[in-house]
């Protein structure tokens, strides 16, 4: 033990004397800390936004309820907040939340007309990409590893110290083992320390933190081993680094880009605009169609209301909402195809990521942090489920009972309750998710 410690201590002191390594490690720490702090601030902003929205949503709903009593008007004017709160790990992997919306307000009108509204952030900032811990780790850390490890052997060779070092050291470990270990440990500390701080602040579970640590260590070991293996016989440090950076470019850019091109060729997805257009046409045409046609189509998919579809006047809310739903149903096929295509793409991207460790790690981290496309699909699924609850709530009043009672309004479905009651994970990409 003391043997190990002595050698590590010496190499630690030795490393501290090499200024560029110290600068490199300090920069790594600074970038990692910046990523974690900005991630925390982003997540807390998202949480605050959700809280503000919740209270504003409630105020507005109560406001509407004092002004409107008719079920149809209530359904028209009452919007319901849905949201997907960031997880305790989201600070480390902000993931796709800048592209996929994590907040929506819906009313009883056709959902297909509402669900594609995006409340995206500044697109120019989104295009530059945000710096989060997952990015630092998956994209940046390999480069740091390359800079730290590529010249381990070559540097000593070109300086003519290699033979002397090897013949002097008492064992392979005493020299290379200790050097590698010290560099690795210091890098790990610089990268992970901010993450642990962030995890503590965000209250992430120990299990998740350990799991992520394991993933990170495995990933960094992979890159370090690659660097050491490539550098072992080499005598020109820049040559080794060029080859390593080439591999990095291949893994981080080229493979994902080619995968993206291939996937977009393989998977055909309907144009998003078509869904809304179809739904829109259906809803608008309904105004000019004989009411019976709309009601028949509605009853076909909702037989429980078949005894209540007769109309007394040219405009009735139940007919209005029925054609909204029929509009959704007309667009359903396209909408399914659209979602299936997105899922298929995600699945295929998963296959591509096996060829790119950087992607694999990024995907694993965003999956753990529930900030990936799957989480977004799931949220969309929840919105659809919630919209169905809304219909189930309003329809009895619209079709049979008339004005909803105060008690009923108090028990109106809310998104928070719906997701709390959700027992089973929805089937999102064809397989049951854990």
């Amino acid at each position, binding site marked *: 033990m003391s*043997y190990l410690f*002595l*050698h590590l201590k*010496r190499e630690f002191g*030795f490393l501290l*004397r*090499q200024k560029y390594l110290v600068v490199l490690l300090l920069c790594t720490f600074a970038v990692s800390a910046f990523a974690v702090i900005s991630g925390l601030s982003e997540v807390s902003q998202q949480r605050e936004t959700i809280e503000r929205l919740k209270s504003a949503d409630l105020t507005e709903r109560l406001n509407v309820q004092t002004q409107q009593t008719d079920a149809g008007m209530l359904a028209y004017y009452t919007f319901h907040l849905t949201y997907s709160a960031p997880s305790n790990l989201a600070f480390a992997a902000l993931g796709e939340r800048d592209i996929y919306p994590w907040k929506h307000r819906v009313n009883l009108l056709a959902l297909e007309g509402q669900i594609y509204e995006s409340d995206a952030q500044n697109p120019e900032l989104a295009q530059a990409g945000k710096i989060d811990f997952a990015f630092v780790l998956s994209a940046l850390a390999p480069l740091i590893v390359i800079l730290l490890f590529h010249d381990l052997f070559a540097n000593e060779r070109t*300086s*003519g*110290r290699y*033979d*002397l*070092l*090897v*013949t*002097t*050291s*008492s*064992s392979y470990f*005493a*020299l290379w083992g200790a050097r590698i270990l010290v560099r690795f440990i210091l890098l790990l500390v610089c990268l992970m320390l901010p993450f642990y701080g962030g995890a503590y602040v965000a209250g992430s579970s120990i299990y998740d933190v350990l799991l992520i640590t394991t993933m990170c260590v495995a990933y960094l070991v992979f890159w370090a081993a690659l660097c050491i293996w490539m550098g072992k016989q080499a005598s020109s440090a820049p040559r080794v680094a060029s080859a390593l950076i080439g591999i990095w470019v291949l893994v981080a850019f080229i493979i994902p880009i080619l995968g993206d091109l291939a996937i977009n060729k393989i998977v055909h997805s309907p144009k998003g605009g078509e869904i809304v257009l179809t739904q829109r046409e259906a809803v608008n045409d309904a105004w000019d169609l004989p009411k019976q046609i709309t009601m028949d189509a509605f009853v076909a998919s909702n037989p429980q209301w078949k005894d209540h579809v007769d109309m007394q006047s040219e405009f009735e809310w139940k007919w209005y909402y029925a054609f909204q739903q029929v509009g959704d149903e007309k667009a359903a096929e396209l909408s399914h195809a659209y979602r299936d295509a997105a899922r298929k793409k995600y699945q295929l991207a998963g296959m591509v990521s096996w060829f790119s460790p950087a992607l694999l790690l990024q995907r694993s981290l965003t999956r753990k942090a529930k900030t990936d496309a799957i989480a977004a699909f799931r949220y969309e699924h929840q919105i659809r489920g919630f919209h169905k609850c809304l219909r189930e709530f309003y329809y009895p009043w619209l079709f049979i009972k008339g004005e909803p009672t105060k008690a009923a309004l108090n028990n109106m479905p809310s998104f928070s309750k719906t997701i709390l009651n959700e027992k089973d994970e929805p089937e999102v990409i064809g397989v049951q998710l854990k």
Partner: protein
Amino acid sequence: MTTSTAINQRSPIEPQRVEQTRNKASNTTQATKNEAVIEVDSLNFSIKNNIILKNLSFSVAAGEVYALLGGNGAGKSSTLKTLLGFNKPNKGSVKVVGKEVSKALDFVRGKTAYLPESATLYPHLTARENVEYFLSLADIKKSDEQINAAFNRVALQQDAWDRNMQTYSKGMRQKTAIALAILREAPIFLLDEPTSGLDPVAIDEFNQLVRELALTGATILMVTHDVYGACQVANRIGLLKNGELVGEFNAPENGRINTEQVHAAFGDYKSRGN
């Protein structure tokens, strides 16, 4: 400059003294002749189809200074590298203290102190820090006094001890490396062209040091193309040509050189031999 002060402080070592010390060493060599510390027996080494060493055999005993003399590309460095375990022999054996080098690498390296041709240590560290660093690599702990003593012994001027080695001349670097070798207390020294690039005074100082080390019972193998230096410091000289040992003789008394034999190892050997 530092070198000039060295000259002033230490007068060139008289040949007489060198001679004396060497004779003493030869005596001890006689006594321990049977205990060969380095044994190279019919060593063959080639890289791809390129034969580097051919049937090379020689041995060095404790207290002996053996110089392997040869021109460029004669196979001197390859022999050293094989002794250090960097090259694996294709045939034959290379033993140090009775152990096959390739089978007891750490043991052999623990017993040998190697002095590379251009002894570059870490330029961003001081001589003392370098020595401490390398000693620690070898699991050796030395006190400051012991290190000071070693520096004194190799005549490294005191004001340079705690200066970054960036500023060192080649001779000073060499001295530091020897101090390191001495501090390792290894019984075997492998010296690669130790005097190339040194000024005459430094060469004399170095030769004196090598003789003293041999007196303490160290086994010293040096490879060099410096005929005169080899004759001055070695007890025995092996002549290496195209990977073969073409001659081995005891160093001439009074440093007089048998030019016949020397030429055999160098350039005009070819014209004669063929």
